[in-house]
């Protein structure tokens, strides 16, 4: 690890001041990702600002829905009675990620900010536009079995690793952010970015901003929702494909469906075409299949991940069936 100065912040304002004073500083939440990146010399901060003592742990119901403190641990969030009973899709998604030990450490804000696990991003001897802009993408013609089928460019084919964020995408969450002067709210669809020509930018935060909370509007998905994850081993592995699905039903007719996919793109992939197809249609396997096909039309495979297209289609159908079953 590169030497760094360790300082602790006592409140959000102080933390933001500390970060804005040093372009090479970084926040430390749970540390489960950044510490690993520092050991690999992928992240090279010269100053670590410990934000573990900030009072941003509260999980609560609000007038419009629910608020998750940015520094509440993943375990606490997944197990909170409010979340388990009202947002089971989110509990399941969090519990599908990592291991019990890591969920005990990882924070909600940090989960959103974790970086891709693309092995070329981690290997500092290889070109990678995300790590070193302009150096090229090694995965494009390399081992890209785990990589993207949606929204990738020749600059970057990496996928975003979080499970939690896939559910948050389907739940239309908003990320509450504080900076030097003010607060701002970023809709989830605009929080994470597609690679475009700037894969080094994972999200729309600026350097001096701190995620303080994640807000989720009220919804009726608790009765009919699911999170399905397909991976190389049955636990403690990143998704090949995952799907978060929530159905709002009137009788057997879908009023609207919210669907997001993980493991397929540089950000949680909102399955808007499938959602559009399902709106107003009866909740049947035949319709689920057509919706999944509509979504997968735009998928573009790389040399080693063609299987993800069929897997994506089937996982979409599976998740919708499970959501229907309740």
């Amino acid at each position: 690890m590169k030497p760094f100065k360790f300082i602790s912040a006592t409140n959000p304002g102080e933390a933001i001041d500390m970060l804005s004073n040093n372009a090479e500083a970084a926040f430390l939440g749970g540390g489960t990702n950044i510490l690993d990146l520092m050991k690999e010399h992928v992240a090279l901060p010269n100053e670590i600002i410990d934000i573990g003592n900030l009072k941003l742990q509260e999980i609560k119901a609000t007038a419009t829905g629910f608020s998750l403190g940015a520094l509440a641990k993943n375990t606490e969030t997944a197990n909170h009675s409010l979340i388990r009973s009202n947002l089971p899709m989110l509990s399941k998604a969090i519990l599908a990620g990592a291991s019990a030990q890591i969920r005990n450490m990882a924070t909600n804000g940090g989960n959103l900010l974790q970086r891709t696990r693309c092995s070329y991003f981690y290997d500092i001897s290889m070109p990678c536009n995300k790590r070193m802009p302009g150096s090229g993408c090694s995965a494009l013609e390399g081992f890209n079995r785990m990589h993207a089928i949606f929204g990738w460019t020749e600059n970057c084919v990496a996928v975003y690793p979080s499970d939690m964020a896939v559910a948050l995408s389907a739940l239309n969450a908003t990320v509450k952010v504080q900076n030097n002067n003010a607060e701002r709210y970023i809709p989830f669809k605009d929080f994470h970015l597609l690679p475009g020509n700037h894969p080094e930018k994972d999200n729309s935060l600026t350097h001096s901003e701190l995620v303080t909370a994640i807000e989720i509007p009220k919804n009726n998905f608790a009765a009919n929702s699911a999170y399905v994850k397909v991976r190389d081993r049955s636990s403690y592995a990143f998704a090949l494909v995952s799907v978060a699905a929530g159905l709002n039903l009137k009788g057997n007719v879908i009023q609207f469906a919210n669907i997001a996919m993980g493991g397929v793109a540089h950000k949680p992939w909102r399955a808007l075409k499938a959602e559009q197809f399902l709106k107003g249609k009866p909740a049947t396997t035949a319709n689920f299949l057509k919706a999944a096909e509509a979504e997968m039309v735009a998928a573009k495979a790389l040399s080693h991940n063609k299987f993800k297209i069929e897997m994506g289609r089937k996982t979409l159908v599976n998740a919708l069936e499970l959501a229907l079953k309740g």
Partner: protein
Amino acid sequence: MKQNKTRLTPEEHRLFGDLMPEELDEVINSGFNRRHFIKLMGLASAGLLASYAIGAEQLFARTVEIEEIPDLIPEAIENGVDIAFNVNATSRKVLVDSRMTLLDTLRERIGLTGSKKGCDHGQCGACTVIVDGQRVLSCLTLAATCQGKSVITIEGLAKANELNPMQAAFLKHDGFQCGFCTPGQICSAVALMKEAKEGQASFATKDVRAAAKSIMLSDEEIAERMSGNICRCGAYPNIIAAIKEAQTGENIPQNWLFTD
């Protein structure tokens, strides 16, 4: 420190005054040291000492004064962080490099080598310890963040000469082969008992919407909840049997039999 006033000859004084004026006072007050000697050598090799032949000759003949080691001073390191925390019910105070992980601090500074460094990247669970009641990975925890916290390692589980029931169950069921992952497995399993009692959900929970209540863990639940601890010897069936015995308190038969 020893007072050291060096008396220079007129020739030496002239040489320092002309060629190394900034060092003159230092030499007079603290003596002719190794650094001055080296600088003088540099001047000699540059041919600058020719007109100071006598002074230079005298200087090279001088004994270089070695600076004395000062009185003992506290350990000082760059980016040091002072931490006071509790390890296995004992208060510890250590000064660590900011980069030091909790795992390295336990092993290298406190001498508790039970927690193991397997992958050092949060992928194997061999370094699992219990911090403030929660199982965490000590390889991905900076020691600097442990101020005021309470850490339990494998060394802190037994009471006097009596093993923790989880340790005894691992022994009975042979929940290991090489044993490298075992301290992490056992710390993880001990913390799991509390999680199950609190009714925490896992990905294997059939319906997370149901209210949390104490859970008796099935094989599938144990496998899911222990997935952060890898055993490359593959002792998983025995680990599951051990955890079941520790949780139920029942006498569960081993997965293997002694032969005659």
